[in-house]
């Protein structure tokens, strides 16, 4: 059977069970777009700037566990996508990005819309391909999806010159399986190490689990909760792991890190054993790794051996799939540690945090107060996508978690992530309650994507904390060694209610602490999408 490169790509996508693409068409991707026209099984969402194709694919991938796929043209299409790819790389999101490219015979001549995208993305893709022969496409596509979704997941880019998309190939065979000799991710944890870990846990008095995004990536939330409950180990979370344990779980101690909950950081300082599960111990999370190492025993469980010892040395490293390792540990059924005093002590810290009272200001609302009430009103399995900045920190610290998901750009800290990611989630799971939470800075980075909300008529709720400044930077600039806020006032911002109306989306404004509950009820109860603008005082800080 003779097929063009574009037809091979479409067949390959179908064979990988791809149902949804996020993209932006352009000249060099036209053959592939044309082949997709005859393939209604694969839906396509047109973004308004390519970066958001990456974020939508990310939101889609994170809630489905499938590979998110984006499709853009060469040159500026590809470079605009870079931030989306880098964001996915830092958070280990399975993604395949297909970029059009100028004709292969003209590569290197700096012709119209040519850019060397594979070199440009090589520091933040798990792997990438520049296709030189359409006959290799079946193999490349199979490898790309396999690499993106296994081991530590991540983005893979396939750059396909337009003539390769048009190239005819005879006798196309699609491989059923893939064997890459340089790629064999570890699955099972070393049995001896597992036994050592169980022994160390049994002997600890003040054990603490620190869980990160790797637990979600391994689909191991249930195993994590079982481990914590079986051994009665209190648990702190990184920003990427925030929704792993419900807020009201007796073992939950909240989020650690520079912007974390005080109770979580206190627990981290006082523990005698730290079990890190699927987290990187990055700079904003564990502020002084050397101090932690000096004070307590550490166990580090991760699928990526390079993470162990990168930021912090672990006394016991345990490399493998987090889900498999946690099951191995559960099977051992070692005696639980004697940690009753420890848990009692932590409970006091936790209680102080949960009952903390927030400040009130006339004519504005405090984000923490709004978020506590929002969490109360949200459905159990709601998905919340939160942007970057104060809105993110308030949400991670104070939004009560139930059994849903909280998605944010934890690694790269990409403003403008929330709205497109939420659209990706909504497209994947139309029945799920989905809320995007933004600041007025980050909302303006992605509000062009309201077009996707409008044209699908989706039910997406967007909450914007409007404080007329880049709040977190404002907050940093007010502290030593800086001399006060500069270059952060969001002058010239539009009236968001008018923006909403322009897209045919209803909006609400909240600037009164006494009306939080009823306004949120109206917001969440609105049929279809709704934008809620919460007026926040510019001087509000995340530690207030």
């Amino acid at each position, binding site marked *: 059977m003779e097929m063009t490169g574009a037809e091979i790509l479409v067949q390959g996508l179908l064979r990988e069970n791809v149902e949804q693409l996020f993209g932006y068409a352009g000249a060099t991707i036209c053959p592939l777009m044309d082949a997709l026209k005859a393939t209604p099984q694969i839906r396509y969402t047109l973004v308004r700037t390519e970066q958001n194709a990456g974020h939508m694919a990310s939101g889609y991938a994170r809630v489905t566990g499938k590979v998110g796929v984006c499709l853009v043209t060469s040159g500026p299409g590809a470079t605009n996508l870079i931030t989306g790819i880098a964001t996915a790389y830092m958070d280990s999101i399975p993604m395949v990005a297909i970029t059009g490219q100028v004709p292969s015979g003209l590569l290197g001549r700096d012709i119209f819309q040519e850019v060397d995208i*594979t070199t440009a993305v090589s520091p933040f893709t798990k*792997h990438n391909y520049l296709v030189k022969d359409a006959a290799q496409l079946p193999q490349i596509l199979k490898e790309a999806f396999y690499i993106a979704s296994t081991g530590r997941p991540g983005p893979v880019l396939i750059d396909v010159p337009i003539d390769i998309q048009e190239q005819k190939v005879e006798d196309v065979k699609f491989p059923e399986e893939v064997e*890459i*000799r*340089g790629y064999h991710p570890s699955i099972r944890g070393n049995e001896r190490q597992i036994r050592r870990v169980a022994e160390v846990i049994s002997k600890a008095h003040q054990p603490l689990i620190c869980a990160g995004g790797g637990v979600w990536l391994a689909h191991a939330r249930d195993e994590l909760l079982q481990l914590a409950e079986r051994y009665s180990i209190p648990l702190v979370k990184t920003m990427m792991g925030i929704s792993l344990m419900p807020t009201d779980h007796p073992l939950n101690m909240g989020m650690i890190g520079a912007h974390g909950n005080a109770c979580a950081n206190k627990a981290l300082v006082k523990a005698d054993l730290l079990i890190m599960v699927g987290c990187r111990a990055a700079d904003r999370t564990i502020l002084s790794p050397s101090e932690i190492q000096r004070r307590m025993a550490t166990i580090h469980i991760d699928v990526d*051996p*390079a993470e162990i*010892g*990168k930021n912090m040395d672990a006394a016991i490293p345990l490399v493998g799939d987090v889900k498999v390792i946690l099951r191995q540990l559960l099977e051992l059924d070692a005696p639980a540690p004697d940690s009753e005093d420890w848990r009692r002590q932590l409970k006091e810290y936790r209680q102080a945090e949960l009952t903390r009272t927030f400040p009130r200001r006339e004519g504005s609302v405090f984000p923490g107060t709004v978020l506590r009430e929002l969490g109360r009103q949200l459905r159990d399995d709601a998905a919340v996508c939160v942007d970057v900045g104060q809105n993110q920190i308030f949400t991670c610290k104070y939004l009560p978690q139930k059994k849903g998901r909280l998605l944010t750009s934890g690694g790269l800290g990409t403003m403008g992530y929330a709205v497109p990611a939420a659209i990706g989630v909504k497209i994947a799971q139309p029945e799920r309650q989905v809320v995007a939470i933004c600041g007025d800075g980050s909302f303006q980075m992605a509000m062009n994507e309201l077009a996707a909300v409008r044209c699908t008529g989706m039910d997406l709720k967007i909450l914007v904390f409007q404080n007329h400044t880049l709040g977190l930077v404002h907050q940093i600039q007010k502290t030593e060694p800086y001399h006060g806020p500069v270059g952060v006032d969001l002058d010239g911002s539009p009236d968001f209610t008018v923006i909403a109306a322009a897209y045919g989306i209803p909006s609400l404004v909240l600037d009164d602490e006494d009306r939080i509950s009823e306004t949120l009820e109206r917001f969440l109860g609105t049929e279809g999408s709704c934008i809620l603008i919460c007026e926040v005082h510019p001087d509000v800080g995340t530690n207030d």
Partner: protein
Amino acid sequence: MKQTISVLVENRAGVLNRITSLFSRRAFNIDSLAVGVTDDPSLSRITIIVDNGNSVVEQVEKQLNKLIEVIKVRTLDESTLIGRELMLIKVSANKGSREQIMTICGICGAKVADISPTSMTMELSDTSDRVNTFEDMMRPFGILEVARTGIIALQKGAGKI
């Protein structure tokens, strides 16, 4: 401390670029890097000399292993490795100095690769230390040009990586 890392990679376009960009991105320093195909034409061997602390070398190994096209990575034990470097060195030479140069070549085991009325070009394959010594010995004659390959290395004995 200098350490020798031997890396087996897919012999494909773009692989060397991935390796070097990894080093620059992770802020690892390369002292020298030599690459060539192996007995298996689908594989290349890259020998990298790095000058970093032990923990850095461990991270280099792990990060290299993450590259899909990297098949094997091994830091070679300094006491049991055979490392060689090839140098071509062109020096000023005339009737008066040729004999002296030949004597030093004899002592150091270098061969004459080219000769002209005013110059001589020698080749020497040896350990980096001995190559350095030879270069020092040639300096008084007036070095015109030097080209060195960087070290390639294998482990002693029948074992392989």
